[in-house]
């Protein structure tokens, strides 16, 4: 019985292992110190070496492993992937546009977009949800918590 691995998972482990190597290199630049008086880079070097060894072990194990049953099935189906990307665009859009348009308008647009991406049918329900969401966020953060969220053009 060999452990099952997926291709994406192996790439993820390789990326983390390389990252450990970079951290190890940076740790030595910080100054290792001595065992009696460890420097700023001592502990990070220790844990990145540990991470690097674990990464190598996981890569070796994945090379010895048989292909996963899940390989036959896609990691995410096409619809799921499109929803994932649309969610990411909306998240990034909220934070890029928010300082200019203000949090109320951007929250309205983002809630509407999230609702449509998640599959809330029709136009009325997403609009009502977006209005409700914006009012809720406004009352919660602006009125109740006095958070200094940018108001943008509604300023």
């Amino acid at each position, binding site marked *: *019985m060999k*452990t099952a691995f*997926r291709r*994406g*998972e192996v790439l*993820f482990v390789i990326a983390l292992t390389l990252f*450990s190597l970079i951290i190890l290199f*940076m740790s030595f630049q*910080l*100054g290792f110190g*001595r*065992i*009696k*008086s*460890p*420097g*700023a880079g001592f*502990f*990070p070097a*220790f*844990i990145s070496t*540990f*991470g690097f060894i*674990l*990464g190598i*072990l*996981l890569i070796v194990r994945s090379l010895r492993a048989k292909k996963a049953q899940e390989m036959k099935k896609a990691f*995410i189906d096409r*619809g*799921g*992937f499109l*929803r*994932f990307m649309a*969610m*990411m665009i909306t*998240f*990034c859009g*909220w*934070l890029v546009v*928010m300082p200019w348009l203000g*949090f109320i308008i951007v*929250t309205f647009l*983002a*809630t509407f977009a*999230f*609702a449509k*991406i*998640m*599959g809330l049918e029709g136009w009325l329900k997403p609009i009502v*949800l*977006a209005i409700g*969401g914006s009012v*809720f*966020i406004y009352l*919660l*953060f602006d009125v109740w*918590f006095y*958070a*200094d*969220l940018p108001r943008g053009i509604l300023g």
Partner: protein
Amino acid sequence: MSGFEHLLNGFSLAFTPGVLLACLVGVLLGTIVGVLPGLGPTATMSLMLPFTLKYGPITGLIMLAGIWYGAQYGGSTTSILVNIPGEAASVITCLDGYQMGKKGRAGAALALVAAGSFIAGTLGNIGLQIFAPPLAQAALAFGPPEYLALMILAFVVLSTLTSESPLKGYFMVALGLWLGTIGVDPIEGKPRFTFGSYYMMSGIDFLPIAMGLFGIAEILSIAVETYIPRKIDKIRFRNLYPNREEVKRSVPPLIRGSFLGFFVGLLPGPAPTISTFFSYALEKKISKHPEKFGTGMVEGVVGPEAANNSAVTGSLIPLLALGIPFAPPAAVLLAGLRMHHIDPGPFLFQNAPQIFWGFIASMYIGNVMLLILNLPLVGMFARIATLRPQILMPIVSIVCLAGVYSIRNSIFDIWVMIATGVLGFLMRKWGFPVAPLVIGMILGPMTENSFRQTCMMCLGNFLQILNRPITMGLFLAAVGFVIFNFYQGRKLKKTLRVEEV
């Protein structure tokens, strides 16, 4: 001042309107997220962290803990009614709880679970009250080597219990510890891994990481999956009465589950979930009719549900007495306390006993609130389970965005949250546990300090540790656990190979 006087003081604090309201909001939210499959207590606690800043540390702590133990109550509702666990700790309840429902005993199962959870929560609370102060007293004698050994043991156990592969768990601990080193080095004052960014000089804030790993990752996981609507039958109050035999059969598993859960709660890892499996296995083993388990045995419902409630209170002991969280919700509690500049641990009992005793008192009150909420309102909570993610998740998404931004008015924190959200999503997909990363990150600075201080104390001669029995004991336990796990893994592989042949 005696423990009883402290507790009375705690009750006087817990009965103030603000604290009572925080307790009610916490347990109510906890029950709701317990009922809702997907959004777990850790995500909700992270989501609520910014709101606790407006109030004092005790109010925030009570609300956050209320979410955690409230979720254990709510989790069983959907397990019994629709065979879908509201959260991981209620998976085992599906086995017999749903079968009881099919036999028309759903109301009785819900009532027994609510009453059992109340008793278990109260017993766990008594345990917390008895064990935490002496442990904190004993921990005053702990030096850096003891703390280092304790954290290493916690990391080892946590990595093993939360992951299909301990290697992945250890890898995540290393990543978490590294995240904890970002920022200015506390001893030499050198900036580390800041990549020239001003925002990273004071380290990466815990809140965006927690919201990303638990909140955004959950939202993304739900978004990529196809939603299947659920239908839930109506539960009426008159259906909630269990019969005499069911009550009689529930008492012993309830007591056993409470004690078992409390002690499992002291272990690092997802203690409430593990305790339910242990309790179910125990009930099945000692039952006169083990073959009937899975067909609607009340012992298989009440025991595990009692265990997960008392496990939560058990999990609070390492956090409050030692300042070391053993589970992600405890890490969020620690982050919440630190936001108020309060460090739990041995000195909490000396410097701010009102926080501990107020918290204990509020948990007694919270358990009563949960019993009152869960019995008559069980039908309403069951209906909440039908709330579609298309409505809930957009609101959760914007609360995450606005919540993280509102803490420091920092766009950088939102980028961190989104990046860790994607990382958390990939980790879930590929079986990398999130808990070791979170615990590693929050304990990172403490682990590094203990590590460096131990190195300085030993002057490079680590054999000196042999003179410290607690340190040695903890290190040996960690090594023993690794060896045991390795041996068990090999045994399992051998068995599977034989089966394959």
